[in-house]
């Protein structure tokens, strides 16, 4: 996306579009990635409760997946998980696998 010049943006850093925080992909800030172990998960959803970035995606009251576009890798989910079903892995491992993504 081409960034706009100073004449073409709202003044004062105002954001006039509601809910557009989603467009800002904060996932690339991550150095460590949460990884889910389906066998250990009891779907208690404490990870969903604690996640500060709403990056636990739940479907039909069950853990479905992480939102890696927005997860900053803080690791709170893995710390809170009572069954150790979430562990953190270094992002570099995936970077090689996923071709630098």
């Amino acid at each position, binding site marked *: 996306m081409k*960034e706009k010049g*100073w004449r073409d*943006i709202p*003044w*004062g*850093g105002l*954001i*006039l579009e509601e809910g557009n925080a989603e467009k800002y992909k904060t996932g690339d800030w991550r150095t460590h990635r949460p990884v889910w172990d389906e066998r250990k998960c009891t779907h208690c959803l404490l990870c969903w409760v604690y996640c500060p970035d709403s990056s636990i995606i739940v479907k039909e009251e069950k853990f479905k997946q992480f939102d890696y576009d927005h997860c900053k890798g803080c690791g709170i989910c893995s710390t809170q998980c009572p069954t150790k079903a979430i562990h953190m892995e270094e992002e570099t491992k995936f970077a090689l696998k996923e071709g630098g993504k």
Partner: protein
Amino acid sequence: MGKILGLTGDEATAEAMRQINPDVLAAYPITPQTETVQRFSEFVAEGIVATEMVRVESEHSAMSACVGAAAAGARAMTATSANGLALMWEICYIAASYRLPIIMAVVNRALSGPINIHCDHSDSMGARDAGWIQIYSENCQEAYDNLIQSVRIAEEEKVKLPVMVTFDGFIISHAMERVEILEDDEVSQFIGKYKNAYSLLDVDSPVTYGPLDLYDYYFEHKRQQIEAMEISPEVIQKIGKEFGDLSGRYYDLMGNCHLEGAELVIVAAGSTAGTVKSVVDELREKGEKVGLLKIRIFRPFPAKQITEVLRGVKAVAVLDRSVSFGAQGGPIFLEIRSALFDEIKPPAVVNYIYGLGGRDIGVDEIKRVYKNLERIAHTKKVDELVGYLGLRE
């Protein structure tokens, strides 16, 4: 027409605030500003104004409350002095960068330390880069007039910047003068109703104030602030004229200049301009070609206009009531000297630091400055670029 009252600077300011009748006033008492807010709080207690008065626990909170109120769409005001302004520092920048048209009366007082409650301009001069428009007032009348005009200037759609209106602590804030007050409805008509296009309370058009702004857009937002500053002089002039049509007292970027045929000019801001004026009148009667250039708008600095009025002048002395430690002179001096750099035949410019911590300045000292200017104009030689007026060696 309004009425004529005997008011101190603080009282005149409170009177202007009463007539402006802001939605929110958040302030913390500090000498010599205290009487302004004290008097205004009486208006609140008596139900004369509809203002929500927020009694905060510090100036940092006062400015923060103003930021919140202004972002919510309110017309917000505050007043402070010296250390109080220093405590607001962080939020002053935020108010300007969010483009919130907050109005603040700054009753000029020396910044500690050692602690001092009397007048100098170190407080507002220290805040000169915060992104606020700064208007300096010479006397009680100007403090009143400038405050009313500042509402319009700040809220003008293409400006949208906070404005500080300053006047000298004690010398003006506590001295009673004849002040012409407009009718209440004249003021309310002049300032009009405030409508913030982007209000936090407007749930139909939601807006975010203060999001994270990194290397991708921060620079562009600063450029917008620069643009608003650059546009503001024409707005200030327009409103100064409108105010003149209403009150008979016209205002421009610079104060009432006494420059006709002047060869030796003193530049001054605040109450000292009045002292210089009386010396100019006295010396002119004796046929001396002396003049005064009064600084009114310091931010944005009207470099172009000042250069024009100083064209043909032989020698200029800039009086600064504050120090910029380690700089090549006081803040006003630096601006004036820089403004004259491109002139083909610039006048000699010298600087005098004076009046720090409320040190009095009298007509004899001003006369001495004109004597020095006369010598400089005659010899074309500057011995001392920055001098100190009224300092014991």
